[in-house]
């Protein structure tokens, strides 16, 4: 079991107040595959009692969640310029 939070703690995020990704809960509910739970390299999609929990704060802005979502439930955009992930060594 990998604790993804420990990895995210190594990364600098300049978090904007407004989320850049929104999940449509209704569309998400009907999905029984939920690839986002596996695909997100930051582990930002988690299930709690069948309910999708999502946080945008540790997002790498890779875009994988959006293109694998079978229900188009993810409204994806980049954060405002200057905000979001900021790699220093990558």
């Amino acid at each position, binding site marked *: 079991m990998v604790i993804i939070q420990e990895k995210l703690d190594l990364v600098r995020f300049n978090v904007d107040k407004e989320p850049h990704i929104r999940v449509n809960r209704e569309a998400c509910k009907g999905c029984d595959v939920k690839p986002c739970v596996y695909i997100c*390299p930051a582990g930002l999609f988690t299930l709690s009692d069948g309910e999708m929990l999502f946080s945008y704060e540790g997002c790498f802005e890779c875009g994988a969640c959006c*293109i694998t979502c079978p229900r188009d439930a993810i409204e994806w955009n980049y954060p405002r310029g200057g905000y979001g992930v900021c790699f220093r060594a990558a």
Partner: protein
Amino acid sequence: MIGKFDAIVVGAGPAGSTAALILARAGLKVILLERGEYPGSKNVSGAALYGTRILHELIPNFWEEAPVERYLTRRVLTFISPQSSFSLDFRTTNFDQPPYNGFTVLRPKFDRWFASKAQEAGALLVPATVADDLIWDGDMVVGVRTRREDGEIYGDVVIAADGVNSLLAKKAGLRRDLDARQVSIGVKEVIALDRKTIEERFNLQGDAGVTYEFAGSVTGQVYGGGFLYTNSDSLSIGIVAKLASLVEKQVKIYELLEEFKSHPSIEPLVRDGVVKEYSAHMVPEAGWRMIPKLYSNGLLVVGDAAAFNLHTGIFSEGMNYAIASAAAAAETVKQAKAKGDFSSRSLSRYRRLLERSFVLQDLKRFKRAPDFVNNPRLQNVYPITICRAAESLFKVEGSPRRKVAKVVLGQLREDNLSLWQVLRDAIDGGRALIW
């Protein structure tokens, strides 16, 4: 509103900075937009920068001032089974003098430096600004709209160097949404290790470096591979896996990375290192088949945005294609500027230049490679078969020895592979990579 520019370059990665640098040197008024706090702050690669000739032409002896980590003199391809590994190890002293064959770099440092060269040449670098949309006049792109108040920027031409997700190419209708079968996702850690330890562990001297590519059970049943590159005083280690395959197998890629790091052949190499950073990025891997339409009226698409990436199992490159494609785009724009014609017809010269350069020639020549690499046997069976065959070949246990062919055929039978199948895959592989 801010004044009009000759060229608007969106994205200050290697492609964007190349275009901005060439155009600014030609005396054009260039604005270079970057959505990160600084160029490179959103960028991730392995990162091995090959094909340095073209960069050397732009900035002679760039390695003397650029933040490059190590020049590459050794390249290792390793097949991995859960317990063993089998490597092809190439090294040469021919690559250890200028202009060198390749370097490892760390993108936040390298991209920042490269953008500063474009800036020195006269391009206006505007970081922390995301371009959301194109501005149209009829069917002509005449600018971009940034997500700031009064954020419109007008220009004769827009060069979209906005990366694998290129929202601009999509807005212009040049390409469709990405397909999970066309892209991979890469995760990577930079692990600090002192220079002396790196030199000892990897048998290196001075600033020489090595890249390792791994195939086989690195990624379990998922299609993909691993890599390990040496930097000056750190290692870059990562996994690149097919998006569709991760979805199908329901595997988390960061767990693959941890397993990879603890493999008996890898663990001794990264032991005692301190993880400095974790990162992730998508890679356009489908090659020739996913290349979008490359230009329209007032718009050119370069680098990852145009899916200019070569992934064949032997080669895994992107930055050199980014730089070369952007150079071709810049040449096209220079000429369009001289004629005062930025129509699709005038910009079509971009494609012709690319066809003459290694960019489209390589991608076309290796157009079968992505399918070949996606062969399930190649991904998950052969590497392990190779390791097992080597094991039975080298095992000494007091019983009579068999000759190599016997060993290999026996191993194929054991792994339920027919000779016919193997030959067919070999021919596929040959057509994809060899002839």
